[in-house]
């Protein structure tokens, strides 16, 4: 019931949006969010868009993850080289 899923806004008519979740379309009320536009990702919960997803943040954290993997790889390499446990 607390489930909220990311959905992409396809079209907007007054305070109702049509959104797509992996190809399936749903209606989402925009009554409790601000500045939502077509193309935005929102979190859909019991028929309401409850928040706009911050795409910049999402991309950013994925990038941070990549760096994290890279860092771990480097540490591993160093551990192998020096024979010492670093983290």
């Amino acid at each position, binding site marked *: 019931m*607390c489930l909220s899923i*990311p959905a992409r806004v396809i079209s907007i008519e007054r305070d109702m949006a049509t959104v797509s979740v992996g190809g399936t379309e749903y209606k989402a009320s925009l*009554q409790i969010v601000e500045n939502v536009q077509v193309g935005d990702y929102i979190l859909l919960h*019991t028929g309401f868009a409850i928040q706009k997803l*911050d795409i910049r943040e999402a991309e950013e954290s994925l990038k941070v993850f990549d760096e994290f993997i890279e860092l771990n790889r480097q540490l591993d390499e160093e551990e192998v080289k020096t024979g010492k446990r670093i983290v």
Partner: protein
Amino acid sequence: MKYMDEYRDKRLVDQLVERIRSLSRTPVQLMEVCGGHTMSIQKFGIPSLLPETVRLVSGPGCPVCVTGRQFIDKAIAFARLNDVIITTFGDLIRVPGSTSSLEKEKAGGADIRIVYSVLDALQIALDHKDKQVIFLGIGFETTSPGSAAGIKKAAELCIPNFFLYSAHKVMPPAMRALIHEGIAISGFIAPGHVSTITGIAMYEEFPETFGVGCVVSGFEPVDLLQAVLMLVEQVESRRPKVEIQYKRAVRPEGNPKALQLLREVFEPQDDWWRGLGVLPGSGLKLKKAFQHFDAENEFAIDVEETREEKGCICGEVLKGLKQPGDCKLFGKACTPSDPAGACMVSNEGTCHAWYRYHRHG
């Protein structure tokens, strides 16, 4: 699906697990207080990935589970009135009341309809002007703004036959109550979707007053493991604080429009939580200006005496004191198809999640 799949990346999961394993020294007990987290944690088998030092326990985060039998009994009493249509989220109809359930009442002829949104309930009211339509409002701050929006719509459109029976609750009093009860919690995995609405200011008291950190987490394995890592880092460095892991959805200030709507429509009331009892200011009731939409105000009902299920230890489970496997009824007299207690009904309930994903654990 975009912005979900990336957070299930196996490589990342492995790396995070490795990092947690190498960093964690102090034994910690981390509690999630969101049913969605409970479900994800069991579904993805997160506990089996963690070192012995990190123990995860579920708290009172499933709205259906913490809602009292009295609420169900009252809803049943409403359902038995003439010319009343009960509208509700699907989870609630199977929750056992003292002697019946909404599902049984429905089978017996009561007009009870499952809706996906409060807006569907409004539509039913518009379509059936000769009936009184009562919407059962349960859920935390994720869900209550929807009910508030529904009430505002009903007021705007002057829908006289729409009513709310509210068991909406707010999270912080329950988290506080757990700490006051002395339950060992080294950090909270704070609810992701509640926080999209509330923001994070309400969690500040936990590190400040109780030394317990809070990390607001998303729902995918990478999210949850990263949140665990952040809490482990906090414990190891002895610096509890409030942090957001789920940055793509949670802003520090939350959703101001939804918060404004909540303040306009609801005011706090004392409310009863399974396992925790009555907590001051932990529930939401309609403000005076909207009282004519309050089902409790508008209908006189006879409610049977509340009787709790014997043997059900839901209350202890919701406080993280016991696990579903400790319950004698678990998997025997209590299963998802024939639940004895509330924690077995909703798929966010701890007992349900255990039954589904690791019955043998």
